[in-house]
């Protein structure tokens, strides 16, 4: 079953840049396949939310408030009578965008800064190390909360805080990898034949050191989704009535004794997405280990 799909996809790719070994390795790791499929499904749900969701996620219907799961409302309704399934489907848009955006931008910035810092050393390296020292002194959530406190609660400021905090870890990771890789023979060889610094970094060093950063990015996506949900849970992130999973759990708190479905389902949604990205990260790191050994 698995192999046939593998051949099907690999066969459909135009031959030339040898995609076969990569795809085959990809398909051989069940955690990668399962994780990627779940992520694809969630992304599809986010894109197709208007046609998938049975109800308008913010329309209130007091006649149907706090109802347990039923045929009309498969995941029940909240205190305003809003359909929870529809809110969870629309919530994928916010939570996924937090995960992707707040990981992708720091990844690019952090890899750039880390590469330059590790390759050249000197003043930029010293400054980066001090920035890291100071940032490490702040507990992750305290730093996030302090930034949101300065800027004011809200979705945009939450994105900003996560991006501002996130790039440092990538910079530190890439810097460490570059420090080792720039001593290796292939780098010396590239330099010896007269390659420019930029060419050495982009063509020779980065392709060899980017792997761990990509693996780490998968855990960063999980961390950012959890952080975004946590901030919204505290009332510092997404504001009502926008459907977001953490905020939905926060709104359910006054009903924990009577309406178990209100906190349960948004939490399961976060967990499923988190596990999917963890599985992809696991699979990628196994892939990386095999390639290195």
């Amino acid at each position, binding site marked *: 079953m698995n192999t046939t799909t593998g051949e099907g996809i690999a066969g459909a790719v135009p031959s030339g840049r040898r995609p076969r070994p990569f795809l085959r390795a990809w398909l051989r790791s069940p955690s990668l396949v399962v994780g990627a499929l779940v992520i694809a499904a969630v992304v599809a749900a986010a894109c197709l939310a208007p046609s998938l969701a049975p109800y308008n996620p913010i329309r209130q219907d007091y006649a149907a408030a706090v109802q347990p799961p039923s045929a009309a409302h498969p995941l029940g309704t909240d205190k305003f009578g809003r359909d929870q399934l529809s809110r969870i489907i629309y919530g994928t848009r916010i939570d996924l965008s937090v995960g992707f955006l707040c990981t992708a931008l720091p990844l690019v910035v952090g890899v750039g800064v880390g590469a330059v810092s590790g390759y050249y050393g000197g003043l930029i390296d010293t400054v980066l190390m*001090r920035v890291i*020292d*100071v940032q*490490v*002194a*702040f*507990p*992750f*959530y*305290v*730093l996030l*909360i*302090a930034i*949101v*406190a*300065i*800027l*004011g*609660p809200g979705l945009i400021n939450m994105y900003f805080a996560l991006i501002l905090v996130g790039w440092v870890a990538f910079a530190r990771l890439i810097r460490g990898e570059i420090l080792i890789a720039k001593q290796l023979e292939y780098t010396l060889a590239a330099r010896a034949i007269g390659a420019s610094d930029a060419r050495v970094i982009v063509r020779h060093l980065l392709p060899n050191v980017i792997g761990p950063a990509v693996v780490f990015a998968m*855990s960063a996506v*999980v961390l950012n989704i*959890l952080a975004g*949900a*946590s901030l919204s*849970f*505290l*009332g*510092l992130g997404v504001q009502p009535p926008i459907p977001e999973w*953490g905020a939905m*759990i926060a709104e*359910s*708190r006054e009903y*924990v*004794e009577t309406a*178990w479905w209100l*906190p*349960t389902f*948004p*939490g399961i949604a*976060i*967990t499923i*997405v*988190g*596990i999917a*990205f*963890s*599985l992809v990260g*696991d699979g990628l790191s196994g892939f990386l280990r095999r390639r290195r050994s």
Partner: protein
Amino acid sequence: MNRRGYIAGRLAQMTVTLAVLAVLVFYMIRLIPGDPVITMLGIQATPDSVAALRHQLGLDRSVPVQFWIFITGLARGDLGNSILVREPVMVLVRQRLPVTLFLVTYAMILATIITIPLGIAGALRKDSAADQAIRGFSVLWISTPSFWVGILMLIVFGVWLEWFPVGGGGRTFAEHAYYLFLPALTMGLGVSAVLIRNLRDAILATLGAEHVVVARAKGLPGRRVIVRHVLRNAILSTVTLLGLYIGFLVGGSVIIESVFALPGMGSEMVAAILGRDYQVVQGFTLVYAVLVSVVYLLTDIAYALIDPRVSL
């Protein structure tokens, strides 16, 4: 001598970090877009009350003078005053810090108690059903929001089974241990998910080491080899990781305290942000950062004293 040099260098580095922290925290209030005084009091505030608060915060003076007042205040242990609670921030810190410290320490102890047996079991029965289950548990726990786990624990153990109280911190030590059990367990489980994998991999790496082979060749009983020769070496990296996770635990306590309505620093900080009580936010941020810096410093010094390789 080298060791002393290392500790001195580490102390100097810490001093620089603390100075930068103080400057950053000083600028926190001044970075607020718009007029912080108007933001704190609302648009309907009278000009008199605005002027009074501006004077109280020292914002009507030049920045260097403000900084001098801030720094000399810090030296006296004065972090300003809360506008909502109408008390010095330092009084709030003294009331609430013990709860947070108790919670974080408790969570670390529970994490250790969970990690060691599960890490050993996973490594000794590598790839068995138990190992797979423990790894599955790790992935599940890393991907689950702690505030949600906390709420589920409250529902199951607090509301349904009524084994634990649903809020508050208790008065005596025994009451603390009882009231804070669920929140500490929630935090401890989250950390142990990471630690178990680390300990398992470290034990697997140590099992093949020469000194372990020698110990076995000498005919030492299996249990003794595991405890004295494998675990003692493998646990070092896990302890290092636990040290690194202290910052994460302290940060996580902000969220968990809010879930369980504990009278610690975190729940007060969130209330202060929502109430625009900026001096509390500022003071608490500094206390958190100093706390974590001191713990990291102590960890590094303890390492320099234990492991002779550090000072090389």
